[in-house]
């Protein structure tokens, strides 16, 4: 076996130009496949693998009795203020948190830190443990009871760097939104991709700069970021009018203890809607949707059909490359026909030659994988350059590297099968004089 490997290794580099061409052909096909597969694989990656099946996105159908929110008969993707606050206050799940994007001026006391317009997420405290948000310093806050909002905030690492030079800022104060907020937590690096918990600005958009308690949004009448959908016509002019309306602007997520509690929670939501119907809301038939994180990502079609089309085209390109590689490998093997016939005369059997050729093809495959990965890195860098939001997750992990090598070795073996078959049928005597 050692001798077979040794021969295969030497043969691979015997006709260096031909070998380089074969490797280049295979690696180009591999790179095209790896880049497109990387997009699918990374975009559809489970952002919360330890508990994604237990973390559920809530949709309730509070929409116009005469028209569905989304055709043909789907409820809105967000919920109203009153449903968000009611359901969170009911505490029927392990964790529950509503959230919405807002913004406002942040005016650091440090003269060196300039004021800036901060994009904020108003949310309940259970947002942090539910989504396993990592903290560098401190922690989040408890879900505040209605009207008990406190002026506390959690900063991202970047904002803490900007305002407090990266120091432990827990307990320090930060003037913003016309109030003095106390910093209770600083996040470590956290860039969930896709940004599953709120994709209104795109599945791969940047997380917000700061987090504030949900109730503060109402108390300070902060602007409604993201997408607001309304079907009623007479909302009134007041901020409270909006909060009491059927307008949806809030993402609502819950975490159940165990998968078996899914149906219990579904039952609770149905009961809640029934109760609201008695109060004159929810004119449409019950049409709640409860999706776990991965179902939600599929529902939102985070990986678009276009990318699957690109992947199919890349596979087609690889197929063309394989044909070319097969032709080049055939040329390479034809050149070694005489030596093969001689080795057969001197005692090598067909199995020896087959094994040697297969190992040679595998070495070509490994080389194709290496160069394919290098080309893929360039390709992914190009995509990151064109789409900066992708840069946080477009990397080659072990799975993608294994995919590249697996596909490359498989491709080279497939390309080499025909030439190996012919090589093994070389009439020995014909080539020896």
């Amino acid at each position: 076996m050692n001798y077979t490997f040794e021969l295969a290794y030497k043969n691979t580099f015997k006709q260096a130009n031909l070998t380089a061409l074969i490797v280049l052909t295979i690696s180009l096909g591999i790179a095209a496949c790896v880049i497109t597969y990387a997009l699918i694989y990374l975009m559809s990656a489970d952002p919360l693998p330890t508990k994604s099946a237990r973390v559920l996105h809530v949709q309730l159908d509070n929409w116009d009795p005469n028209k569905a929110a989304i055709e043909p008969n789907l409820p809105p993707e967000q919920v109203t203020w009153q449903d968000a606050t009611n359901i969170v206050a009911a505490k029927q799940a392990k964790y529950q948190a509503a959230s919405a994007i807002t913004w406002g001026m942040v005016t650091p006391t440090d003269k060196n830190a300039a004021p800036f317009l901060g994009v904020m997420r108003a949310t309940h405290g259970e947002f942090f443990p539910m989504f396993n948000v990592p903290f560098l310093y401190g922690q989040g806050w408890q879900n505040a009871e209605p009207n008990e909002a406190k002026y506390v905030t959690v900063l991202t690492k970047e904002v803490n760097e900007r305002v407090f030079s990266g120091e432990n800022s827990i307990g320090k104060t930060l003037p913003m939104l016309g109030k003095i907020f106390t910093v209770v937590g600083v996040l470590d690096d956290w860039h969930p991709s896709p940004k599953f918990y709120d994709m209104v600005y795109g599945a791969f958009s940047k997380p917000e700069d700061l987090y504030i308690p949900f109730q503060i949004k109402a108390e300070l009448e902060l602007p409604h970021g993201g997408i607001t959908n309304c079907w009623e016509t007479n909302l009134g002019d007041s901020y409270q009018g909006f909060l009491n309306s059927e307008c949806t602007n809030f993402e609502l997520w819950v975490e159940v203890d165990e998968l078996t509690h899914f149906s219990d929670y579904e039952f609770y939501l149905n009961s809640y809607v029934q109760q609201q119907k008695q109060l004159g809301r929810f004119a449409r038939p019950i049409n709640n949707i409860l999706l776990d994180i991965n179902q939600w990502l599929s529902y939102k079609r985070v990986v678009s059909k276009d990318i699957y089309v690109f992947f199919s085209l890349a596979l087609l390109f690889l197929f063309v490359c394989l044909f070319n590689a097969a032709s080049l490998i055939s040329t390479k093997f034809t050149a070694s026909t005489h030596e093969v016939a001689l080795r057969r005369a001197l005692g090598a059997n067909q199995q020896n030659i087959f094994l040697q050729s297969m190992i040679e093809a595998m070495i070509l495959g490994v080389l194709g994988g290496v160069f394919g990965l290098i080309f893929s890195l360039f390709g992914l860098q190009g995509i990151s350059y064109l789409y900066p939001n992708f840069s946080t997750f477009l990397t080659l992990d072990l799975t993608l590297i294994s995919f590249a090598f697996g596909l490359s070795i498989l491709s080279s073996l497939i390309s080499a099968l025909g030439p190996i078959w012919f090589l093994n049928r070389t009439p020995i005597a014909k080539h020896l004089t």
Partner: protein
Amino acid sequence: MLKMTDVKKVFRTDLVETHALKDFNLQVGEGDFVAVTGPSGSGKTTFLNIAGLLETFDGGTYELDGQDVSNLNDKHRSQLRNEKIGFIFQGFNLIPDLNLFDNVDVPLRYRGFNSAERKKRIENSLEMVGLAQRMKHLPSQLSGGQQQRVAIARALAGEPRFLLADEPTGNLDTKMANSVMELLKTINDAGTTIIMVTHDADLAKQARRNIYVRDGQVSEL
């Protein structure tokens, strides 16, 4: 030791059917030195290829060392070739990018000998053909006669029972041809059976036994 009975070999194309061997009968005993002569296209080389298990045949029987080889699979044929037969070709057939040591090593590798055993055999066989000092040289650095000696060393390294030589001196001048012939006679004297195909009547005369092949059939001279 080598017994062919009514062996037939037909080469077929879409248009032509050529009977290379027709009821070919031959028996070669242990330690014999047989020279095979005959006109071009008479079937000499076909006979040698069949004898060396490089080609199959279409009819008759062939026994090598008492073993019927008609229905052996590729693995067994290759093993028999490796263990019992040594080849010497007109064109030497050395691997150009391997030095003499590695060229002689090729059949021994397939035999599965350990490295010490292989080294001993390679050195001995190169010593026998007088090229032990040049074992790190490439074939291209040798003369034709020396290259044929390396081919002989390669054929002998595995200590085969048969040495099959197809025009071993065909590419050599007279002096070198005689030198190679002397080497073959020495090898035969040591007990190895040799079957040599040649056009050269003078060389053939130096063999112990001469057979003549014509139209795919053998006749004793």
